[in-house]
């Protein structure tokens, strides 16, 4: 019996991301069939680079959502980090690239600390706290920048190069995205710390009574997503070169949360994987590029995107529910019908 159940468990976990993966394959097939040039290498690499920023932030957001929280302020945080970094680069053109990256990540981390403190010690539901900081941090972008945007010639070449080159051929942007996903995968599946993050989301009361430092873990995941949003700010600058106080990172939270949710993370916490989020990001990237490539009218695009996201979530949910139901039923039936 034990062996039987065991294999069923791994079956479920293996299949967890299967639904969304299948959906991506179908989309690729459809887009490719309509417009073979969709598969051109520069198009695919462009999809990946646009998805890279999403993945970096999404990796962090996954852990936040796993702990039953949500961070709506990631777009503003990304904006503030990019803006501060851009201003440093503008005033000191010789500032080392690595220093700029660290500055952006520190700024992001500070925003994360703020969110984390409000949610943990302040006991404010994260959706409210980060709805507030979404606006506050955006206000901060305006204040620090004095409403002046960073132009492409203010951005160091070294930063731009992050989106195009690296020692191993793949752009740094993608390497960062890959590392972020792998880091979250490693932490969540291999380390005790990761298990604690999931435990806090799975049953907060039990976590407290088992002596897990609830507040510390909450603050930690918010700092983590903040730092990654800061890194996202660097990548944003690398990719788009212009940092406009009003535009930078605006609305990113919707895309990130969509990606995480499409990737199968339970919005009520406790479960979710980095791989799922990565697939969710890729799905969003493919949709926004592919729909234009296959010639869907710009007016139909938003409609199609909304519908396909809904479809992806619904199908994934149905498949997963069925699997879980069957699994639980199998376990019960082992007892009931003997």
């Amino acid at each position, binding site marked *: 019996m034990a062996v039987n159940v065991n294999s069923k468990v791994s079956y479920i976990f293996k299949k967890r991301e299967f639904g969304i993966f299948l959906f991506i394959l179908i989309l690729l097939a459809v887009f490719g069939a309509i417009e073979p040039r969709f598969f051109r290498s*520069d198009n695919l690499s462009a999809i990946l680079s646009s998805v890279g920023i999403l993945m970096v932030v999404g990796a962090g957001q996954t852990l936040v959502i796993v702990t039953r929280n949500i961070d709506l302020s990631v777009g503003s945080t990304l904006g503030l980090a990019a803006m501060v970094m851009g201003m440093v680069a503008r005033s000191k053109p010789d500032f080392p690239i690595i220093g700029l990256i660290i500055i952006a990540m520190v700024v992001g981390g500070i925003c994360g600390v703020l969110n984390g403190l409000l949610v943990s010690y302040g006991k404010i539901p994260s959706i409210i706290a980060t709805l507030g900081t979404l606006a506050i941090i955006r206000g901060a972008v305006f204040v620090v920048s004095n409403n002046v945007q960073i132009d492409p010639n203010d951005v160091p070449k070294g930063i731009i190069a992050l989106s195009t080159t690296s020692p191993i051929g793949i752009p740094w942007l993608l390497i960062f995205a890959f590392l972020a996903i792998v880091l979250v995968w490693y932490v969540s599946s291999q380390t005790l710390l990761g298990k604690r993050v999931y435990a806090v989301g799975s049953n907060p009361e039990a976590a407290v009574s088992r002596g897990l430092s609830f507040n510390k873990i909450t603050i930690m995941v918010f700092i983590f997503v903040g730092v990654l949003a800061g890194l996202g700010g660097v990548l944003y600058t690398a990719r788009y070169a212009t940092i406009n106080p009003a535009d930078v990172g605006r609305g990113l939270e919707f895309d990130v949360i969509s990606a995480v949710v499409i990737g199968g993370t339970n919005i009520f916490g406790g479960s979710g994987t980095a791989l799922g989020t990565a697939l969710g990001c890729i799905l969003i990237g493919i949709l926004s*590029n592919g729909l234009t490539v296959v010639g869907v009218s710009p007016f139909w695009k938003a409609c199609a995107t909304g519908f396909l996201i809904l479809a992806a979530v619904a199908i994934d949910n149905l498949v997963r529910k069925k699997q879980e139901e069957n699994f639980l039923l199998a376990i019960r039936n082992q007892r009931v019908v003997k």
Partner: protein
Amino acid sequence: MNKKHKALVPVLGMSLILTGVSASFMATSATAATKYKVTYIPKNLGNPYFDAIVNGFNKAAKGLNMTVKVVAPAQAGATDQIPFIEAAIQQKVDAIAISPNDANALCPTLKRAMKAGIVVLTVNGDTTAACRHASITPVDFSVLGKYLVDQTASVIDGKGEWAFLSATSTAPDQNAWLAGAKTYIDGGGQPGLKLVATVYGDDAPEKSATEAQALLAKYPNLKAINAPTTVGIAAAAQVLSTSPLKGKVQVTGLGTPDQMRQYVKDGTVKAFSLWDPGLEGEIAANLIVSIKAKNVKPKAGLTIAYKGVGPGTWKLGKDAVIIAGPPQEFNAKNIDNFHF
């Protein structure tokens, strides 16, 4: 005593924050010394293009005994400017200058402003003629469509496929230009060009870049992308500057020199255009004084003259529209002469 007063601490803190915020972000407010109080409402803040218009306003205001206040919403939504118009009405300013985000939605509010004796000018974008006294457009909107087509033709030698990368599908100026371009093409203008698509980047760099990239993938013979929006042109140029198609596909359109300098120098962009947005501000400031002090009634056919401002004289067109000046093309040769 302290029990009851402790509850007041947060209140006090809140009001302190409020006043602190207001103290540090209040725009230059009217003082008793000036004669004319003007509120200028750009589309939104942080846009270098509108900063240039503000600069023009301030430049002219110095000699006109005028204070110009600049306030704007966070986003360029259709109705987001309304509260600021209302506030200006309440403050009983002498004039409102506005770069409208919507051709119709602001009309009722602007009409009320006119009723209250406030001079209403639209700058860089227009509403229905009945809702303002006069409109100052940077260039002749009716010919800008043609201009954009011709500009595209000039960077790709008059032949090949091209696409528009517009801002939002609801922006009135963009739609006017697009319509003008279509009329020109339908009328046989630039027969060597083929407009294959019009896409919208929603004035967001991410979306604009994604759309630009998708155009490159879909149209292998694409020769040019024309983005008549500062956000769009920069995003498209950035995509191409890091793409193998750099130099093979041209980016042109409307952008500020500061933003585009990089791409002109690295060869991504041959040429693009804009005008002097500051001129619009200067004309607007002068016109307000004319209307207020000299009781000038703006109408078609009227000629106005301001010394030291751009070309110096303007003739008002249909619906009291003033066209500030011709577009200016920027290219590798002249770009370093411009800084805005």
